[in-house]
């Protein structure tokens, strides 16, 4: 497979995660204290590096068939989660993940928390918030880079996509010093959900022993079909909403 689709897929997926991490870091740093926020970020990055160093090489020792089966299943499950959320948000059944309101929530919580010095960190609240935010979003980035890179035997291209996303989002965040509210996050998540589901289904079925018609070219059909089916579900839910009275937003907002 050409490296460009791999780089673009990883770039978009990682950009979404980086935007979410940036919102948490900005809210903490601006409201509380930058030093403890950077310490939390730095420790999270070290933990991520350790996890990557431990898991990455271990995965590459797995036989390709077993790797594709396990990783395909995980990616398909992961992708369907993203698609489910994106469809529910697009149809109003779930509140849109609004970075501006997420930022305001974080700021309000950060203002209320007491300053506590612990383990050499001057503001433990800022440290833990930045640590958790960067670790959680970073884990998703690591998962995407390792699974996509390893399956395509091109970790380098996946790392380039992820690094470019993190650099672009970080530089933009530094430039505007505010959460990136203009990013069409739900549609990016929809696109990433389509890619993860398509690749996961493709690799999972290959791992289970099937031979796809046209080999890798089957992905050129699978990706648009998954997108069309997911778009079809959006139309279905919207038409159902039109038939019934105003549908309540059934699911509350969660991170992610």
């Amino acid at each position: 497979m050409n490296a460009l689709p791999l780089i673009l897929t990883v770039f978009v997926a990682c950009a979404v995660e980086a935007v979410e991490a940036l919102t948490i870091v900005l809210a903490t740093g601006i409201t509380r204290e930058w030093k403890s926020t950077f310490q939390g970020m730095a420790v999270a990055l070290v933990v991520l590096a350790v996890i990557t160093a431990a898991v990455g090489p271990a995965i590459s020792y797995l036989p390709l068939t077993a790797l594709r089966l396990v990783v395909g299943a995980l990616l398909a499950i992961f992708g369907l989660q993203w698609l489910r959320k994106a469809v529910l948000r697009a149809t109003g059944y779930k509140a849109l993940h609004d970075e501006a309101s997420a930022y305001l929530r974080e700021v309000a919580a950060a203002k209320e928390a007491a300053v506590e010095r612990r383990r050499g960190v001057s503001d433990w609240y800022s440290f833990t918030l930045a640590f958790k935010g960067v670790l959680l979003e970073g884990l998703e980035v690591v998962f995407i880079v390792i699974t996509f890179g390893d399956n395509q035997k091109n970790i380098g291209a996946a790392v380039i996509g992820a690094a470019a996303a993190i650099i672009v989002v970080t530089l933009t965040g530094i430039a505007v010093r505010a959460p990136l509210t203009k990013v069409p996050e739900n549609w990016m998540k929809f696109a990433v959900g389509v890619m993860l589901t398509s690749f996961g289904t493709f690799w999972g079925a290959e791992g289970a022993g099937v031979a796809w018609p046209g080999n890798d070219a089957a992905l050129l059909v699978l990706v648009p079909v998954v997108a069309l089916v997911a778009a079809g579900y959006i139309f279905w839910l919207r038409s159902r909403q039109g038939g019934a009275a105003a549908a309540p937003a059934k699911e509350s907002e969660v991170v992610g």
Partner: protein
Amino acid sequence: MKYLKSFGAFWYDFIIGDDWHVAALIVAGLALTALLTHAAHVNAWWLLPLVAFAALGWSLHRATDFRK
């Protein structure tokens, strides 16, 4: 014990997410695909996409069926 529970909850939420039925259906779909391919010698490449579409549709229906 508390840390172990929250560690498990974190990974459950990270991998399985909001609806465990989707994960269960994908695993079942893969098992059936492997069975058809290896035991019945049917090249069932079409099965997993169908299972994925059905799982998504069913999960969306369950999440939005406000008559319950």
